[in-house]
Every structure is written in structure tokens, then in C-alpha cells.
């Protein structure tokens, strides 16, 4: 079981430590970890996000698990056998809960609210074993910092954020929902949020294209409602993951999602739909290099019109290390080259009259005739109102609710890991 959790800043400083068991872990482990990470980065001279050591490593004294969120490193230690994914998944939950509570995650936010962080950690894990990780219950036990609360504390000097009673949910058989909820207006919103992962190889062929989607529900319902969500075409789902509130039986028998929802925003289900045949836009990079310079030309356009506007299109790529300077222009949108040699071309919407293109030349390192590595273009876009996978929500049935609630459906598709190789 976990023995200690450390939160490290992006400079390796320990923001706080939480000892979990009697086997105390000294802070020096963090210094060891940081040196280890730095040494690795030095040896291989690679990008920042890649310099991290493996998520599970054995230090001389402890086994370390770590995740990095928004430049905060969550480091957990143990000395005995335990499922490593349990530790990692737990750290992810901690990061989720903290960023939810603090509305973001950075060094200052954690330091400013360290008492809440301590209280949360204490509630979330006991003796190295996760205790309460359900965000809804945590919210009832420890109130998140709010503007009103801050003002009150300034005025009155009293700043208790601890609840005095145990949330009723802990006793019920649906631990994710408080028992006696009352909302003035009963509403439930279902969002399909899809991310398209695609790989287009050097020859322009679509190697892989799949949708990773989530059904996000925002429920503001009184009492103890029982919801059933059915899809029009559940057979296209390749694989699914459910929130604990989803009952397995109805899904197994007729692929209906039957559940008692938690209150507020939650992720009901995630799914994967594989082997899609089409992408909404095309990105065609062309590179040719010769005599120490490299000419680049990137074309972007709509391939399959999804019927809604494609928004916030952006093409990003990393200039290879052997490039000394680059002169890039575009006929639409803006081009930025960041300090870490990342080139970022934000297009926005595709205009009707012309096809956006980026062109320019780059100077190679002296002694290098031609470019023998090729950059990978990461594309992002957003399409509101469409689920590109074609998954359809058929019906949302609500039982056990006195008033007729308002039901809303939305869909959005974004680019996920959408890559074009050149």
C-alpha cells in the first residue's frame, strides 16, 4: 500500500508531503527522483514531456509511482508489492479532484489552499488504501473554496470548510448520490464529446482513424431518479467503460444504460469506435530539401463536409533539431514559432474562397545537405453539433421523478491525437 504522497513543483521543490502509514518516507526521495529525471533528460537531450522517467520506477529504497499534471508531479512511494495501476489511477483521481476543487492546478493554487489539499488527501486515502474518492461525497465533506466563502472568511475570520455531518450517501447503496436532493428546476443534459484519433502516413494514406468518445451527463434532478439511456446504433461501439452507477445487466442484455445519476456533471461512459473511413479535413504537407535548405508547403482543406462548421483548426509541428532558422508564411491565419522550436499555425475557420496554405523555407545545420528526418503535424479542430462517429442517442427515459424534467442533448467532436506524417 502507498506510504507517502509528495506534490512537487516544476522545479522539483516539494510543495507538500502526506505521510500515510507508520513507515515514514523521508523527503530525500524526492531529491533522488528529481536528479534521476534530470539525469535522464540530460543523457538523451529530448523534449521536456519525454524526459520523464517511467511512471513506475524502483529507487534504492522505495518503488515510486508518478504522474505529471499541469507541471505538478504527484509522487507516491511504497515498499511492498501492490497493483501499480491502483497507485497511478489513485494519483490521477487526486489530480482530478484537486483541479476540480481549486479550479485549475498550479503551484500557487496548491500552496494557497494547502489546508484543503491536506484535508482532501486525508479523506481520500487512509493507511495507504483509497477511502473516499467519489467527488460528490468529497464535496459534501469538504466544501470547495468559493468566492463567497473567501469573502466570509475575510469578514468573519471564520473559515471552516469542514462539514459537520457525514454525507448521507456513504450509508446508502448508491454511494455516489446524496439521498435528499432538491432542485427547483429539474434538468438533465447529455453531451456526446468525441475525440478523433487519426494517423495519416507519409503517403497520405489513412493508417488509423478512430473515435474516442464520452457520454457526459449533467444532471440536476431531485430525489432518486432512475434513468435509462438507449442508443440508436449501439452495435458500432467497439469497447466501453462505465461510471460505477451504470448497471451491468441491462447493458449485457439489450445495451441500454440504466443508472441512478450522481448529482451534477459526471462522465457516464466512455467508448471507442474503430476503423472509421473518413476524416473531415485534409492536411497535406510537402517537404523538399536540397543544398542546405528545406522548402515546406502545407495545404489544409475540407475533405468531407460534416454539415457543421469546422472551427479552431490549428496545425502544429516540431521543427527538427537540425533546423537553424525558418521563414514561414501563410495565406490565412497566423504562424508562430515558439521558443522550443514548435511551429504553430492557427487557421480558425476555413474560408470559402481560398484554400489555406503555409509555405516557407528552413535553413539546415551546416554540413547537412538534406533533411533526413521529417516532422509530424498535429492537427486540431472542433466541430460543434456533430458526433463524427455517427453514434445516435435514441431516448432518455426518466423514472421515479415527480415533475417532468427538461432534457437536452448536445454533441461535439474534437481532434484528439490527429497526426499527419510528412
Amino acid at each position: 500500500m502507498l506510504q507517502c504522497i509528495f506534490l512537487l513543483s516544476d522545479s522539483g521543490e516539494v510543495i507538500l508531503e502526506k505521510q500515510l502509514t507508520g513507515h515514514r518516507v523521508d523527503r530525500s526521495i524526492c531529491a533522488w527522483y528529481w536528479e534521476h529525471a534530470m539525469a535522464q533528460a540530460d543523457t538523451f537531450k529530448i523534449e521536456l514531456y519525454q524526459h520523464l522517467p517511467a511512471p513506475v520506477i524502483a529507487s534504492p529504497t522505495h518503488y515510486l509511482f508518478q504522474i505529471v499534471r499541469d507541471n505538478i508531479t504527484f509522487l507516491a512511494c511504497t515498499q511492498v508489492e501492490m497493483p501499480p495501476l491502483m497507485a497511478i489511477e489513485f494519483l490521477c483521481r487526486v489530480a482530478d479532484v484537486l483541479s476540480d476543487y481549486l479550479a485549475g492546478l498550479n503551484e500557487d493554487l496548491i500552496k494557497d489552499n494547502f489546508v484543503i489539499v491536506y484535508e482532501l488527501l486525508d479523506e481520500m486515502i487512509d493507511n495507504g488504501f483509497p477511502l473516499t474518492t467519489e467527488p460528490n461525497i468529497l464535496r459534501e465533506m469538504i466544501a470547495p473554496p468559493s468566492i463567497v466563502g473567501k469573502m466570509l472568511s475575510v469578514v468573519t475570520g471564520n473559515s471552516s470548510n469542514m462539514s459537520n455531518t457525514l454525507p448521507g450517501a456513504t450509508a446508502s447503496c448508491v454511494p455516489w448520490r446524496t439521498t435528499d436532493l432538491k432542485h427547483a428546476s429539474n434538468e438533465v443534459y447529455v453531451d456526446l464529446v468525441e475525440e478523433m484519433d487519426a494517423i495519416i502516413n507519409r503517403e497520405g494514406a489513412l493508417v488509423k482513424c478512430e473515435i474516442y468518445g464520452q457520454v457526459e451527463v449533467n444532471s440536476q434532478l431531485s430525489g432518486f431518479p432512475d434513468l435509462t439511456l438507449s442508443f440508436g446504433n449501439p452495435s458500432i461501439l467497439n469497447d466501453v467503460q462505465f461510471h460505477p452507477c451504470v448497471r451491468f445487466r441491462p447493458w449485457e442484455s439489450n445495451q441500454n444504460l440504466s443508472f441512478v445519476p450522481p448529482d451534477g456533471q459526471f462522465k457516464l461512459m466512455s467508448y471507442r469506435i474503430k476503423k472509421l473511413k473518413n476524416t473531415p479535413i485534409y492536411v497535406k504537407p510537402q517537404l523538399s530539401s536540397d543544398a542546405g535548405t528545406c522548402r515546406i508547403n502545407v495545404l489544409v482543406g475540407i475533405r468531407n463536409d460534416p454539415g457543421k462548421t469546422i472551427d479552431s483548426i490549428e496545425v502544429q509541428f516540431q521543427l527538427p533539431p537540425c533546423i537553424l532558422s525558418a521563414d514561414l508564411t501563410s495565406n490565412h491565419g497566423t504562424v508562430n514559432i515558439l521558443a522550443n522550436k514548435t511551429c504553430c499555425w492557427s487557421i480558425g475557420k476555413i474560408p470559402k474562397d481560398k484554400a489555406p496554405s503555409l509555405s516557407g523555407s528552413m535553413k539546415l545545420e551546416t554540413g547537412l545537405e538534406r533533411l533526413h528526418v521529417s516532422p509530424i503535424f498535429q492537427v486540431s479542430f472542433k466541430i460543434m453539433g456533430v458526433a463524427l462517429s455517427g453514434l445516435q442517442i435514441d431516448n432518455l427515459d426518466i423514472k421515479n421523478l415527480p415533475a417532468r424534467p427538461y432534457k437536452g442533448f448536445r454533441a461535439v467532436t474534437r481532434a484528439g491525437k490527429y497526426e499527419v506524417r510528412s
Partner: protein
Amino acid sequence: MFHQFGATADSLSKASTLVFRIGTDAHLYDDPDDVSIAPLLDSKFDSEKCEALKRLLALIAQGFDVSNYFPQVVKNVASQSLEVKKLVYLYLLHYAEKRPNEALLSINYFQKDLGDPNPLVRAWALRTMAGIRLHVVAPIVVVAVAKCARDPSVYVRKCAANALPKLHDLRLEENTGGIEEIVGILLNDNSPSVVGAAAAAFASVCPNNLNLIGRHYKKLCETLPDVEEWGQIVLIEILLRYVIARQGLVRESIMASPYSEYLDSEIDGPDRDFAVKEETNVVSIGAYQSQLLQMASKSYLEGPEKYLSQMNFEDKGAFQSGLPKFTSAKNDDVKILLQCTSPLLWSHNSAVILAAAGLHWIMAPKEDLRRIVKPLLFILRSSSASAYVALCNIQVFAKAMPSLFASYSEDFFICSSDTYQIKALKLEILSNIATESSIPVIFQEFQDYVRDSDRRFAADTVAAIGLCAQRLPNVANTCLEGLLALTIPQSLNNDTESSGGDSIVLIQAIISIRSIIKLDPPRHEKVIVHLVRTLDSIKVPTARAMVIRMMGEYNSSGHILPKMLTSVLTYLACCFTKEALETKLQILYAAVKVVLCARGDDLCASKKLLSYVLELAKCDINYDIRDRARVIRKLLTQYLFSFELVEEARYISESKNMSCLLAERLFLEKPKSMSTEPNNYRFYLPGSLSQIVLHAAPGYNPLPEPCSLTIGDSSFGSNIVKGGTHSDLYGVDDSERASGSSDDDSNSSDGSEISEAGSSGNDVGDESGSASEGDENTGLLINFSDVGNAAYANLNGNSEVNDPQSRPNDFGELMSNRALESWLDESPDSSRNAPESSSFQNSSARISVGSLSERVKPKSYTLLDTVNGNGLRVDYVFSSEMSSKSKFVCLEVSFKNCSNEPKEKILLFDEDIEGGQDNSEQALRTNESSSAPHNNDVKVIVPVEEIPCLEPGQSSKKIMEVHFHHHLLPIKLVLRCSGLKLPVKLWPDIGYFVKPLPMDDEEFFRKESQLRGMFEYNRRCTFIDHVRELKDEKGEISLVKDKFLVVCETLGLKMLSNANLSLISVDMPVTTNHDDVSGLCLRFACEILSNSMPCLITVTLRGNCSEPLNTTVKVNCEETVFGLNLLNKIVSFLAEPPL
């Protein structure tokens, strides 16, 4: 003093954060000690206390030691404000261990809080109280936990379950029974969330007490989907262990594949169809795969360390231990478990998915395994850390069963945002699962990867291409083409300095090419020729060296290569001086190889070239090159410089020059093909930490032995139920007992245990007392003490020596054995401490080991029987006496003349050291001085003095001292007798590679706790010796004799007769059933002769007296291999029937 803001924040963000920071605790973190905290703590306003506590917390967060405020903080535990309470608890838990005395002050408040109507308060109090971790309060906490385990609030019960591991951490040996009891109660709870926490408690408190699971198995399976996600992870593993231990492995699963040939014979009826179907199934398994699967399944069962060490010591005796028991997937227990875990593959917690997938991997029929694939692949889309762990496991699955993932290759295609570790894992998986049909697409991908700007990744891709070619020989040619293409363009436009990244790709490409060529050198001759031709453009020294080496290696294979050798060598000789070190070496070697293989005209030319290169090398700046050149020169002098002669000599193999032969041996030996054997591959249970770090993490347990949980045990399970009700009683009245013990501090720290054990001991004592009718040597209260050491056995906690006040004095008395003996034998009245304790000691039986050691009969081995020895019979016995020289084992050798003629001049000596005493003494001396390290391997005996004459029928005994150097192989000795030399073998006994290590049991436990985890090994066996003992004396004595004693004695005797140990202590079971010896536990200690490391042995018995007993032997020893061997030895002799 502290950083006010993050170093990176500029002034603007400073200003903006300042606004947001109003009303937060920011100022407390920034300047925690700008006001004096002490007065605030003493304030009567909660808000001020809060502020002070927050400041302290901030200091803790920043790594300062603020334990000096402890007394003031503890006072505030009485506060009514929950926030203050919580903050105090946070502080308290951080420092309780440091300030145990002050922490005690808070206990009363906790006890008061435990009665609070608010469940949150009760839960917090319990959590904190258990978290304080002080031995002194442990009994109170046990009582509190027992009470909270019946609390109406689910949350409190859950916290009670979480408190159990904390108690277990304290190693309260006396309370284990009680704690396990509570685990049982909580496992049976109605609320799934409590069950989850109870499962976690079970896993850390008593993971091997699977009987406890057996009682609730069905119910646990059914609640599994409703249990909280974290509990699910643990519970899945527990249920898996239970089913394996109860029902055995599943015949249709991959675990059974190594035994398939054995199983096929068993299969009949409907199962046979299955077997046939399996053969035609897509899941076709090659020899390599089945070997891997066998390794995996054996490793899962025994742990890779043990499995690998077994491979070394008893090579192919893999099946010796017998076939594991198998069951069918149609078995109810198996079926329900598989059913209940399959929906968990849809969990949103990746750890649950992996745990469920791991269970299916081990238990599910092969054709159902596919269902784990998609969920596993879905994990790859979550955080990169989870993806990494999932990939590590998928890699193992894919290695053992590539067909499972073969059609999912596109899921392992690499994104630029993947971290390096993930990329490397994906590449390895891709090269493992590639099939004839998917390889074109994969190659297409690889070609893209090779152009990645991370050159380390590109090099890995090149290595993966090589692996693919080795797996699928049909594509080898395509691979070679691609790889060759890689060697060219880079060499054209790069100098070595500018692109360090590209050189690793080039080197890797050459390595891959080499590994492909190795598969079929003659067929790929053109590739070598091509590489040699481009040698001029290959600038990277390592790559160059490798190509030259390849040329040398395959110089005689093919047709084109031999023809161009001379010119290439000339070229190489020309640029020799400009080359890098490694290239120079390879040029040297290649030249020698060519010379050794050359024929006719070539030979002449290449000889000249070689001598030219040697000349150059002689003057090289590097001493290594100079030395090597000199060696080669020396070896080949004749060969090189007497042209005609050697030419002849080559064809007359008899006259072949010794040095030439040596040179050929050195240079022409084909390198051993890189073993594709998975021997060094280590399998740990899927989803475990050990699988990721690839060594057994402390606390790692392989699967239990299949079917080790027998039906007999389940009746034992019902015994536990009985015991449960028994101590339920104790649970009910525990509140008064707790108050009693806390009131009456003079009672001793563990007063409650004493009274408990005392009372139950009395119960049993009465029973057996009535049965034994006043026999002095009966009863439960035994002092088992070892003559060899002054340690005494400390039993149920109620023998007189356990009285804490008397303890120090007793130690003094115990210093000498004689004192102990006399003290034991004399009536209790004579002892100062005895009267008070004897009041609850009805009777006591003592086996002083004096008597036990007299009965120890070490096993005698035959060195020479009368037939082979011409009438002379020589036996030897390992003696427990210690040799005067350290590291030597004493043997008692007895010579007996069974013939009719006298035997003369009998002498036993080491073969290698011919005869004389002086020689061996000398060897001994050199050995001891250890000036010559290789000498260490020579076994040394201190010889027996010669027996001048042995008359017929006469026998003689000699003590011989032998140094086995910890080899388990026999020593070959020679026995000289009447002029005859007879070879004999002396078999070592690992049980005597140790010497007794006396200690008291506290020290034993301390040592044991240091040697946990990977230093701890368990094995089970059955002990039957006592049965005969009990049966023999049936009728008259069995009434009088305590069965426990008999069991104890026989077991102790067996142990001491077979190994040189010292008995440390004996734990007697506390039970109402005097046939049930479960819990009887003997502890032994010894010290390894060679390095004086302690080695602790614990033997625990389970079962019914009159039946064969399930025995668990545990060895704790730092020396892993030795410990395992010793364990095997112990298990084998324990299981041996008595003589």
C-alpha cells in the same frame, strides 16, 4: 525565508494571484511562523486554534519538524469544533510515533469520541487512534475496532476495516486471531463498500487464511460488481487465489498448456472434442510459445526466482513435484468467478480492468481470452502512466500468446505524443505480434518511424525490424533491403561528429543486419559483400568495426566474398593507423581469421598482410592493441613465418601445431547463436508491481499451490467458526476488560492478552487435566528449551517467565544452561517469581531439550557398502558438533570390517590432493589465507588419521572435518584400504551447512521482521511422523500423553535430527478442541557457516492430531539461494516417512 511565489511567475501574475489569494490560506503557507503559534494554540477561540494548526500544517508541508508543539496540540483534541479536531488529527498522526508518551494523553478523548452519536466523529476517532501505532494502546484499539466493526454506520465499519492493517503492522502476535476474526465479520458485511475495505484488510492481515474466504465465497463473488473500485482490485486477486487453492488450475486455461500432454490422457468424453477443436483453433501454439507459456504458468505458481533456481539445481525434474491439480472451467466456483469479473472489464478504473484481465488470463478458457483484449487496449487511451503499466502487461501477454493481439496491430502504432517508454514498449509488442499478413502494414509504419526526429526511437525501430525478421524468416529479405537502405544515405552526407543521433541508428541497423545474416549466412552473402563494399562510406567506428567483424566471421562462406578478401584486407591494412580502437581490434581479428581459413595463393597474400598489420599494431599507441598483437604473433609465429613447413602441416592434422590449434579455437569458433530461449525472462502475476520492475518486490506472493486447500481444511474452517463464537464472547465482554486493563496499569502492558490467553488456556488445561488425571507431564503449558542455548521458550504468554517484572532477573539466571536446567527441574517454590504465576498454571510439561537432544538420531549415510568395499563398510553421520575451524562441517565416519580378513592402512583422503596430510594442510592454509581465489572452489577435508589395522568385526569411528564450500554436489574422495584405492562419494547435507544460533524469541521476531519480502520463502508439506507415534502408544499412553506434546516432540526431533538448528520457541495453539493442533508453531534459528548470516525457520502446523498434518515451513534468510535450498531440504525430510 520561503519562496513567496513560484520562481517562474512574473510580476503581473503576482499581482493577479494576490487578488485571488485573498481569503485563502496563502499567507499561512508563505509565512507560517510570523506569529507565535504557542499562544494561539492555547486560545479559547476555535478560529485562532485553527489558524495555529494551519500554520503548523504549513510547516509540516514544507518539511520542518514542529513536533515540539505536540503537548499543546494534543490538548486541543478535546475541542468540539470538527475542523479543529480534523487539523489536530492531521498533526497527531504525523508525529505520534515520535512522541509516544504525549500521544497517550489523547487516548481518553478518542475513547470518548468513539461513543459520539455523529458517525463522522466516531470514524475519525477510530482512524486516528489506529493510526497512532503505539504498542501500548494496541489492545485498546483492537477492542475499539471490534466494537466499530458492528457500528450501524457503513462509513465507520469501513474505517474499522481500514484500521485492521494498521494494527497488523504493529505485529501483535497475540492478537492475530482476534484481528482475523474481525476481518471475517467484515467480509460478511451487507454493505459492499465495507466488503471492499475488508478485502483490503484481509490482503494485508492474513492473505493465506483462505478458509476465511471459503465461507463467503459465493456471496463475495456476487457482491464483487457492487464493491467500490479500489476494493474490487484487491478482492479479485483474493478470489483468484482462493479458487486456485481450492479447485486448482483450470484445464482449459493457458496455465494448463505445459501439462497438456499429461492432461490429454485424462481427457475423455465431451472434453475430447474440445481438445480436437483446440488443435484446429486459430490459437495455434508453437514450441517456443508453449515453452514461454510453461514458464509463465510455473512462474505464476512458484515465483520466478524459485522456478529459475529449480531449473539450475534439479534440471529437468520439473514434473517431479507432481502434476498440479486441475479442474474444469465448468466448475461452479470457477464459472461464477469468471461471470462476475467479466463486467468489470468495463470499469472506468484501469486498475480494475487490469486486475480482471489478469484473472481471466489465468483462469479463463483459452478461447474466451479474447474478451480481455479490447478493454486492455482501451486503457491505452487514458493517462500515459496507466498506458505504460498496461503496455508492460500487454507485452507479457503478447509474448506468451501473440495470436491474441495479432489483429490489433494498429492499436500499437505510435503517436508522436507518446513518451519514450511507451514507444519502446509498443515497438516490442509490434515486433512480437507481427504475422505474415500484418507485416506489410507494420513495415510501412516502421519506415515512418525511422524518420522520426528522436533518433533513439528511430534506432529502436531498426532493432524491431531485426526482431521481426528473426521471427518471420519469410520477410527477412524485405527487412534486409530496408536496413541496407538505411546504411547508405546517412553515410553519404554526414560526418560522424555532427550527428551523434544518426550514428546510433546506423549501428543498430548493422546489428540488425548481423542478426538476420546469422540465421542463414550463405544465403545473405551478397549483403555482406555489399556492406564491405560500402565500408569506405561507413564512418562510425562501431559500425565499421562490426562490418569488418562480419567479414571475418563469414569469410569462408559463399563464393564472392573469399575472392575479394585480399583486396579488402589491403585496404584495411592501409587505413589501419587512422582507425579508432575498436575498428583496429576488429581488423586484427579479421586478418587472423582470414589467414586461418585461407587456402592457396590467398594464404600467402593474407599472411603478408597480417604480418604487416601486426607490425603496425606493435607500434600502436594503445597498449591493448600492442598486447593483443603480441599474443597473436606468438600464437602464429610458426604459421606465419615458416611458409612451406606450415603449409604441409596444415594437411597433416596430427602434427598440427598446438598454438595453431589454439588460435583456431580462439578465432574460428562460431559465436554461439544468441539464445532465443526465454530462460532469462521473468514472469510475475499480471498487474503486479513486480512485473513492472521485473524483480520480486517485497511482499510478492506467487499463486497458492493448486488444491492446497482441501476438504479437510473446510472442516477446519468450521472449527474457526466455533472459535469465532468463542471469541465473540470475548468481543462482547471486551469493554470491561479494556477498562480493566487501562485502569490497572500494574497489570502490564499486555495485560488483556495475558488474561485472555490465561482464561482460554485454563479451559483447555482443565480439559486435558481431567483427561490426564494428574500426570505431571501434561497440560498445555510447556517450556520447550534448548540445551544448546540459553534461550527459553516463551509460550502462550502465561508461563512464568513472561511476567514482565521478573524478566530481567530471569535473564541473568538463564545465562547458564545449568541454571536453567536446575530451575526447570526444581519445584516452583524455590523460584522467587514462581508462586504468583503458578496460581494459574495447572500443570506444566517440559521437554527440556536435554532429553530431546539425547533422542536426536542424525541420519546415517553409507559411504561404502560391504560389497563394493571388499567387506569394509563405511558410514557417515553429520554431527552437530562444531568444527574447530570455521566453515567446516563435522562428520562422524564409522569404519566396520565385515569381512573375515583384517583390513590394513585405511585412509580417507581427497583425490585431488594426493594422500598426505601435509598437502591437504597446505591446501587448507592457502584456502584460509584465500590468496588464490580459484582455490576457494576446492573442497577441503581435514583428513582422518590412518587406521593402521581393523580386525574382522572390529569397528572404528573417526571425526572428519569437511569444507563443502556450499556446493550441493558430492565430494569425490578416495578410500585406501590394504593397498586398494576405492573412489567414494560424500554427499553433502545442506542441513549441516549451518550451525545453531541461539537467541531469544524477541530477537527472533526482530530478525524475522527484517527479513521479510523477498527474503521469505514458504513451502507446504505434510507431516506424518507423529501419527505412528500416537498410534503405537494407543490405548494406554495416549490418554496420559498430551497429543500436542507428541506432535511437538516428533517434529522437533525430526528437525533437529536432520539439520543443525537450535530450537527457539514453540507456540501452542489455544483451542478448545484438543485434537486440533492448528496454530502449533515451532521456531528454529541457525547461522550459515560460510558467511554467518542468520537463517530463521518457522514451522507451522494445521490439522488434526491423529491425521497427517499440513505443515507450512517458512524460511527467512538473506541468502536467497541458500534459503531456498534449505527450505527444499526441510520440506523433503519433513515429508519423508519415519524410519
